[in-house]
């Protein structure tokens, strides 16, 4: 059936030793490391080459710039929880329960949505209403670019998870293992998004 159209969706590829979706996901994540890495690189360059004083001096950051570490920490905790619920979705798929896998996926989606809601309401919109924009300073330029790109990744993950909960779940009837592998690849991506936030939180909110 489907595995005839696309080979090695379940069984490991003889050369790579894993099903191809997993290798593909890891290659994609490697490119993501470079994408986010370039922004971290920009942050290092801009911050450490800024003069000590004068108009081009590095502007106020973190709390001094008006960011709340409490909101940042809350969102960190929400993402950590969502990583665990994502693992639970895959785990229950492995154990053979689609209904439990879907339930954990839905919990993950809800956590992701609350992350975005908090980000928009208490951070982005609050900053805009105080006249703080990406153009305000180099710090805010990087803050909005980095957290914005990260938030887009969250939205992307939610779209994939919605597909897996909804129409994508029909794959379970045909090949539960193939579906569970899709859960695993989605999980890999999701944990990576969590991993990026683990670095963004201290760098932007605390230092």
């Amino acid at each position, binding site marked *: 059936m489907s595995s005839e159209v696309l080979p090695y969706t379940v069984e490991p590829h003889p050369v790579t*030793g894993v099903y191809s979706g997993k290798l593909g996901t890891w290659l994609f994540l490697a490119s993501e490391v470079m994408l986010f890495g370039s922004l971290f690189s920009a942050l290092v360059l801009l911050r450490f080459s800024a003069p000590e004083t004068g108009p081009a001096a590095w502007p106020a950051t973190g709390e001094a710039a008006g960011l709340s570490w409490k909101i940042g920490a809350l969102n960190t905790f929400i993402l950590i929880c969502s990583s665990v619920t994502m693992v639970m979705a895959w785990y229950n798929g492995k154990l053979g329960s689609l209904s439990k896998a879907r339930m954990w996926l839905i919990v993950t989606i809800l956590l992701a949505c609350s992350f975005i809601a908090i980000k928009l309401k208490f951070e982005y919109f609050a900053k805009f209403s105080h006249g703080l924009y990406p153009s305000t300073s180099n710090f805010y330029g990087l803050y909005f670019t980095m957290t914005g790109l990260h938030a887009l990744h969250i939205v992307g993950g939610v779209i994939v998870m919605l597909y897996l909960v909804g129409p994508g779940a029909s794959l379970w009837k045909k090949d539960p293992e193939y579906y569970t592998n899709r859960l695993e690849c989605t999980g890999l991506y999701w944990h990576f998004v969590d991993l990026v936030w683990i670095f963004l939180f201290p760098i932007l909110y605390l230092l």
Partner: protein
Amino acid sequence: MGDAAEARKHFKSYMVVFGALALLTAVTVAVSRVHFGHHSINVGVALLIAAFKASLVAAIFMHLKWESSKSIWWSLGICGVFFVVLLGLPTWSVSDAPPNTAHAAWDVLPREMVMEAKGHHEEGGGHGGSHGDEGH
């Protein structure tokens, strides 16, 4: 599913990592309140904790601890090398420059271009002071 038993074995690790990540988030915040004398030490400590948290996520949640595919490890290894170069270049270029020259470009660019583009004037003596500067 043959490896259901194996998945079951890892369940405890997931819960332990969850607890560790939550705890380390609190530690990150607490440690940022302490001043270690120099800002760069605070940065180092925060990055060390973040790196440890990240490796927990990668090892347990992303199953790298149990990953045996050489293709994946090679891809990640090469990615790691490029990542080090990517972050090493700005660090090196900044530290390599003679004192007070690395920022020269940034010193001029934001003031002359950004301020002009925004039509922004500094409050107070902005006119007299900054115009005198621009003459050079």
